[in-house]
């Protein structure tokens, strides 16, 4: 199975307003960056050259992993999307 495809099969009703907001400044100082490998939806990307963290909420599966893994409390907001928005499982 092709890994890039795996993300295309899940349906979303994307909210323009992000439900998770990251203070990326905190990430520069972070020594583990466990979110980058632990997030099952590849939402966190660390660019070593620019020393910059990018977070995209679009494909978020609302699994909760980053909320637990980040022990620096880098989130200015971590909540579930507004009612009716976000991931929409059909048969899992």
């Amino acid at each position: 199975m092709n890994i890039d495809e795996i993300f295309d099969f899940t349906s979303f009703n994307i909210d323009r307003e992000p439900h998770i907001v990251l203070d990326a400044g905190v990430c520069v100082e972070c020594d583990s960056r466990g979110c980058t490998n632990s997030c099952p939806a590849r939402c966190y990307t660390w660019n070593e050259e620019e020393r910059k963290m990018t977070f995209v909420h679009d494909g978020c599966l609302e699994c909760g992993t980053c909320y637990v893994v980040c022990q620096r409390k880098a989130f200015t907001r971590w909540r579930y999307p507004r009612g009716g928005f976000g991931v929409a499982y059909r048969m899992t």
Partner: protein
Amino acid sequence: MSRSFQAIVVGAGPAGSSAALTMARAGLDVALVERGSFPGEKNMFGGVLHRLPSLEKIFPDFWERAPLERHIVKKGVTFMTGDSSFNTTIEAGSFDRPPFNGYTIFRPRFDRWLAEEAVKAGATLITRASVDEVLQSDGQVTGVTILDRKGALKAPVVVAADGVLSFTALKAGLRRPSFDPGQMAVGVKALIDLESDLIDERFGLVREQGFANEFVGCTAGVRGGGFLYTNYDSLSVGLVFHLASLKGSGKTPYDLLNAFLEQPQVAKMVRGGRLQEYSAHLIPEGGYDMIPELYGAGILVAGDAAALCNATGLNLEGINLASQSGVLAGEAAIAAHKARDFSRKGLSIYKSLLDESYVMKDLKSYRRAPQMLHNNRIYNEYPELVCSLMEQLYRIEGTPKENLSKLFLKAARDKVGLKNLAADGFSAWRAL
């Protein structure tokens, strides 16, 4: 607009719907609030619904009415290393006769059905509503607000059944502000389409019989395991990782899932199938020691929100414990209404009911198991030991064979170390 109810349930998963159903059947005016556009839209799990004594009592014909996939007649465990695997399966006649021991289900169907049963009993289901604040006055919970909606929902008792992260319990001051990654696991799953005839043939099943297989040694050294369950015409295949171990490994869940699906023996099981959906969710794995405050003034916590999940045996038991605790929370709220006492003391009956039920009893008896699962040897050395032993036993090279106990000791010394073997045997015995 504000509305008043006799009880509010946050979250229409198995815990919340069971609580709402129990209260509605007793005549309480109850609101069941769910953030998804329908109950179950947000929910994934591995796939086996175990016996539900709590709901069987409420509907004697539960198993005829619920939307189910296959009943599990065959259970297996696979020890895996690289491209070798060793399987054990049990198929018991009693698993094929009602009352069945477990079923595969889809959450978007099952959770929706259960919530509709609560509605039939008189509960008011409010969907697309994400609970935001927990209203309190003088330390007594009095209701909740909904994100982006004006007004509030008021009630003398709120049941927090909002799942593993329970922001409702957090805001009511019942759970600690952060979680220990050592007490959490994350599961990822691929739902793969496969014709039902092919499933029957491939796994040796007939009618609506199902197969549930667990795997160890398939997570590239990350503490965790795998599963493969047969639905009616699809397979649920996934991996579960202890979060602390995954975090430290630098490996990603989707790469490991891909490698698992490509492992030669697994690849044969899923061959010809098409990926339908990918999903992920946390599991509260800490067991008894992770349980938060279960009640406060005007509030009760049930299901995953209260970490009532038994993830330490060979079965992952979550839905059954969630549903049972939901029913008990419902009963406690009914008792509080009768006594007109919603104080902490008035609701403490919930704790007594839980303590008497199998929910707490099981979590107590498996209290030490989570520590045992933090032993890396279970995920690497033991699967290797089993596979290499079996390989040697079956290999024929035209040289005389060593006897079994010698082979075992040699393999154990190489793979695990005899001292470790004794220590692990002892701690497993103590934990179980």
